[in-house]
């Protein structure tokens, strides 16, 4: 009998998004089971349900044949399930030992916390499972690898028998990854079971016994790792998805509009996120950046659009470097930006639709005449855009919060496209919105591209990238790994390999077609 059985699990969110679609998933005791899929595949959601953070809309969970229901993660912990999250749940100013015993601290007879005992417990667990940590070190100052081990020991302190690890190697160096694998083997030797969420196929092959692939909320299949190749797994992950057939007029590529040279960016926590990115963008084309999220796409866009300062390199538009300039200056150079997170950057939800539509042009005529703004013009302007972009709302004066996700995005798209851009950066433009809006926005992107705008498309949805782009580059761990000058000739499998770092073109190959 499997240790864990998740039967017919479905999870549908309030906004209609189907994160899990009748998923059947089982795990045997003592195995290392990899759970793979692209972003949005539903694997994180499935595990959150198993750990009690989310409740399934439908389906059951059985542990050792017994049906259980988790109202919170405490219930899951009671069933000896532990989760090591991708975003560590640690208290930065506390020590390693303090974090491990938090919530259940050992006490001295005088009811004060027994610090010595906390350290002892930490050392014991560390030794037993071969997880090297320094008990007195402050979490803020230790490296990511150790932080992860702290999270693991935290769960072991609570006697977890099943450990769920969410993208554990995403932030580790190769050496740290090796250490982690050794630790996982030791855990299994001691009788634990490990579920390992990842999209790194090399690791799947190296460490797992079985692998389950999910895609778009559905379960694709479970296979024994030794029976499949990485290429086969990639194929199952990325799949053959023809979402919507966009008929693109033939490309009429013009001159270079943007040159990105040696772009580097180191984050404030010290991680090198962009490691020398190079590409050119031409008028009349859509250049798609394909890659699994977390490989630097977000930062690439932020740096180009002035939301963050780069740490090296150049981005030339009209022969001028736009790096480290203000968003206003960059917009003045006709670089428009559809941001990946519309709620954070793209709109002000409590402000009206019409006011959201003018944030980049409120000071220009005819909206602003001398001292005063002309709200009649603002009205006209927004009514026109609402009509032009089919934004479903009875009144432009209503707050943006009254719109559905798709229509909110249309507001963003309407504003950015109507600014008559020279270059358009579109980041995850159809994420989290309904089919109708998605179709519409994609059509608009193609339309503007055909009219001569240079479009940079960043999207985690590979089929979107493939159908919209004329050229595709793959981004992996902060570097461009491949250039595909004819998107129609690229295949999902091949792109998948480049996106997942399994293949890489040489600099000379790429130069020719960049």
């Amino acid at each position, binding site marked *: 009998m499997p240790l864990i059985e998740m039967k017919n699990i479905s999870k549908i969110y309030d906004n209609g998004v189907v994160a899990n679609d009748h998923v059947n998933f089982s795990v045997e005791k003592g195995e290392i089971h990899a759970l793979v899929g692209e972003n949005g595949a539903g694997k994180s959601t499935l595990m959150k349900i198993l750990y009690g953070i989310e409740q399934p809309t439908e389906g059951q969970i059985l542990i050792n044949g017994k049906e259980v229901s988790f109202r919170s993660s405490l219930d899951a912990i009671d069933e000896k399930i532990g989760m090591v999250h991708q975003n560590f749940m640690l208290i930065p100013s506390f020590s390693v030992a303090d974090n491990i015993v938090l919530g259940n601290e050992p006490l001295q007879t005088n*009811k004060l916390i027994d610090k010595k005992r906390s350290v002892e417990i930490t050392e014991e667990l560390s030794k037993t499972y071969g997880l090297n940590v320094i008990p007195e070190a402050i979490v803020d100052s230790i490296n990511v690898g150790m932080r992860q081990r702290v999270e693991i020991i935290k769960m072991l302190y609570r006697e977890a028998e099943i450990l769920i690890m969410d993208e554990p190697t995403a932030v580790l160096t190769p050496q740290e990854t090796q250490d982690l694998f050794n630790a996982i083997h030791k855990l299994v030797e001691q009788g634990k079971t490990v579920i390992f969420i990842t999209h790194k196929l090399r690791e799947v092959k190296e460490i797992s016994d079985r692998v389950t692939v999910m895609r778009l909320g559905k379960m694709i299949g479970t296979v024994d790792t030794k029976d499949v190749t990485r290429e086969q797994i990639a194929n199952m992950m990325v799949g053959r998805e023809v979402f919507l057939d966009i008929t693109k007029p033939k490309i009429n590529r013009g001159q270079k509009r943007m040159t990105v040279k040696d772009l580097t960016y180191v984050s404030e926590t*010290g991680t*090198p996120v962009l490691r020398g990115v190079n590409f050119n963008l031409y008028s009349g084309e859509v250049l798609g950046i394909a890659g699994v999220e977390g490989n630097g796409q977000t930062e690439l866009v932020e740096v180009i659009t002035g939301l963050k300062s780069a740490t090296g390199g150049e981005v030339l538009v009209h022969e001028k470097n736009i790096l480290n300039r203000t968003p206003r200056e960059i917009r003045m150079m006709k670089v428009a930006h559809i941001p990946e997170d519309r709620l954070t950057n793209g709109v002000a939800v409590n402000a009206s639709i019409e006011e959201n539509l003018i944030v980049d042009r409120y000071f220009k005529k005819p909206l602003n005449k001398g001292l005063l703004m002309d709200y009649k013009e603002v009205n006209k302007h927004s009514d026109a855009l609402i009509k032009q972009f089919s934004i479903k709302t009875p009144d432009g004066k209503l707050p943006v919060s009254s719109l559905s996700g798709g229509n909110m995005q249309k507001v963003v798209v309407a504003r950015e496209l109507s600014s008559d851009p020279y270059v358009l950066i579109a980041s995850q433009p159809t994420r989290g919105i309904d089919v109708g809006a998605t179709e519409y926005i994609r059509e608009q992107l193609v339309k503007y591209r055909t009219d001569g705008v240079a479009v940079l498309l960043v999207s985690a949805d590979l089929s979107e990238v493939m159908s919209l782009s004329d050229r595709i580059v793959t981004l992996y761990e902060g570097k461009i790994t491949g250039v595909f000058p004819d998107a129609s000739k690229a295949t999902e499998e091949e792109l998948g390999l480049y996106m997942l770092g399994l293949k890489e073109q040489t600099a000379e190959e790429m130069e020719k077609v960049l």
Partner: protein
Amino acid sequence: MTLDFVLRGIFSTFFLASVIRICTPIIFPSMGGLVAAAAGVSNMALEGIMLWGAFTGVFVSAYTGNVWLAVLAGCLAGILVALLLAVAHLQFGSDRFLAGLAVNLFSSGGTVFLMYSLIGEKGNTSTLASLSVPNVVIPFIHDIPVLGPILSGHPVFTYIAFFSVWVIYILMYRTRLGVHMRAVGENPAAATTLGINVHRVQYIALAISGFFAALGGMSLSMAYLQMFQREMAAGRGWIGIAAVNLGALRPIPTLIAAMVFGFADALANQLGSLNIPSQLVQSIPYATTVIGLAVYSIQQRRVAIERQKKYASAHYEEAASEAE
């Protein structure tokens, strides 16, 4: 009065002893504020709670003749008012700042109102025979030259104030409750996943902050003076908040910040005998706060930028070697 005279005065036993005493009503709200801030619910009503503590202590001592009962009553009043704030914010979602402001308004108005209703006075309770706490004279120590009067002979509140720093230290770092408070303040999500009841912890933190703020108030009305005066907190509650700001949520730095302000306050009194106008000198503590905040912010920025630079160069080497 010459500068020389004043300088000698500053380095005198008398002055240093007065510094210790003057710090007392600043240390209390600072410590209270620290606990609340550490739990993520910084208390904006410290000023008002100090007033209620001062007020309650005076009136209960006058009506019961028992100074310790009065202190107890004052502390209770502080806790209750803090809980009012807690309920408004945690239960009913009131903005912490606005609710604090409301409580402050309630306190400054309410104390004068009650004073008038009870004894017909609006300025102070000098007509009331309220009590003050005894001074503590430590035998032997008191007779040590120079140091003696600095360490001994203070009202009991002063000793409680410094003792409370230690108590808060133990609370925050050695008890489960305190550790949970700090965890909740830093990462409530993480705390929740480990079974800690965030709201419960925050209620307790606010109650504790009310307790200490009330003690601060009583150290004014039952030691510094022996009566209640309208608005007698005179901004010390806000200085307490500033001290917490500068103290990076740790007891000792917060104590130091509080003492810096206290020192400035005492200095202001001392310099009053010079020709420098008293009002300008009285501004010293407040100006110090502003400068302190500015310096602190600049420092923070610098640290963050350096960290980025440090890792940038380190990783360049790592990345470069990896690429090979």
